[in-house]
């Protein structure tokens, strides 16, 4: 994903958080801080300074944490990232999602355009 894509992801997350309670936004900020400093003991570096593999390992531990507060915090962060990523039309197109308000008729047109015949 290019720079513009990441900006789009961030903007969608910010938009989603705009109408949420200040308390939730505060919790989120705190969690991101905790996540960033958590790897310091094990890796000697903050999360933001780790490579992709080490980051994934930290996130997996967070996901499986015995503490519900950390698991649900991770789940919330993951949800926001997925919202930002799959909320983009480019991502929906890339995975082949094709729902259209025009339903069957629209699908027939699209499929005929692709020369694949009628699926319905």
């Amino acid at each position: 994903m290019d720079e513009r894509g990441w900006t789009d992801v961030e903007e969608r997350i910010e938009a989603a958080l705009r109408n949420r309670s200040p308390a939730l936004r505060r919790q989120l900020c705190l969690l991101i801080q905790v996540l960033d400093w958590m790897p310091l003991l094990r890796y000697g570096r903050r999360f933001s300074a780790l490579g992709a593999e080490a980051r994934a390992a930290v996130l997996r531990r967070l996901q499986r944490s015995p503490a519900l507060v950390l698991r649900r915090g991770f789940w919330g962060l993951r949800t926001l990232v997925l919202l930002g990523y799959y909320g983009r039309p480019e991502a929906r197109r890339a995975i082949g999602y094709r729902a259209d308000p025009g339903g069957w008729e629209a699908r027939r047109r699209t499929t005929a355009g692709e020369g694949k015949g009628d699926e319905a």
Partner: protein
Amino acid sequence: MIERSYDVVIVGSGAGGGTAAVGLVPLVEQGHRVLVLEQGPRLADEEFTGEELEMAEALYADAGGFLTADGTMTLAFGQVYGGSTAVYTGTSLIAGPHVIEAWDIPGLTHTDVTERSRQYMDQNNVHLLEPELINENNSLFQKGCEAAGYEAHQFPINVKGCLGSSLCNLGCPNGAKQGTDRVQLPAAELCGVEVVTRAEVLRLEERAAMVRVSEKPPSEKGAPSEWEPGEYRVSARMVVLAGGAVGSPALLLRSGFGEHLPRLGERFTCHPALILVAEHPRPITNDVGHPKSFFVDRADEEGYVLETCMYFPFVTAKSLVGFGEEHSRFMAAFPRLQMILVLACDRATPGNRVTIDGAGRPVVHYRFTDEVVRALALGTRASARIFFAAGALRVHAPLASPTTLGAGEADRIDERVRPEHFTPGTVSVSAAHLMGGCAMGRSERDSVTDGWGRVHGIPWLRVADSSLFPDSLHINPYLTIMALADRTAEAIRLDAGELLAAGAEAGGGETEVAGGGPAATA
């Protein structure tokens, strides 16, 4: 503070509120004034675009992301003209006799619920979808059930002119789904019932609702409110609560009724659900066509119901456990995905209830009981068998570790899918059948209302929504909500002479009234 006065105020416009509105038209014809207050907006037809995030923001409370108190379950409920009927799939089932009999509510019989449900099935064009309009996501479920030994039934649905957009849960972009937003509310408005949107009821006082009407933010969908933005005191000789299983008990609690009604907020159930996903070797028609045509009912035997379903990219991504390569592989297979919803038939359980926080906002406390977790595991096993019998290559099973089951493991499903793999906060659980909180019963010792939605000891206050359910329904609830709201409306019509006349003698409910609360009226 702006003063307004009505004979009956209905709070909420969903399956319950819309039904109550049309049920009170005879009062309007007698010269009484009936008002519906809806917290959400009224959207124009062209605003239903099917875009996942923008429609979720416009139609659902908290954009569909309302969480239980411990953050382990998402509750989806509509906050728009028509309430959750704007965002359901329109599946229309009549409650089973054993469920209504088990509720054991004086005066409430299965025959009565059935007759009233049928009336709304007729009104809302409920029928079985024509076979040629059923997509492969659904037909594969039926095929898998046959091969794996499960009995699949077809859902009757309430659509008229369905184009098969698959976007029901984002509000039908073609106006085909016959919810209260399309049928009951417009009919009631045509007969003189007033509906005011963007109107949040902050609290109730003695025969009055304190209401905040919000301005339409420039960037949001929907029309401005029918009333000028501001704070209103709406006096009413009767108030009917139809704000749903979260909204109605929360409104009563923040209005101070909890002391008089010790069972307020209790008996909350919601059919906790898992969205399961399987990958087929070839593309199937899944994101075109009505999403929900079949179900398997194993409620009595194993505590779950399976339904076909099809969700959108973000919700699908959220439902898959984990992240990284395996997660992306399933998402990249979207055109080949089949989906099944596993619903646990939960039971009213002490501690699972609606309360409010310091600011009066609803808080839903929900603990997954062992029975619910077992039902989710059994439902996942059954779904995996159905997926593989239908030809799936692999299944994402949140209650397996690791979560991906390959077709080669089809004979090890029971071993791989286990209740102990359920980790709250890791597995995405959601619920859209929210029930209870103002349960029907015999007296304030065991419930909030009687079998006709009359709040115990408060004759001017009624309930007409899913909060009336004393326990879960085991099926999609909207027809039963309409049946119960129809009973509430009938009781109001019966009681109206005395109550509305009594209000008139007291000054028509238009004079300034202080505090009051339940004690003054009990």
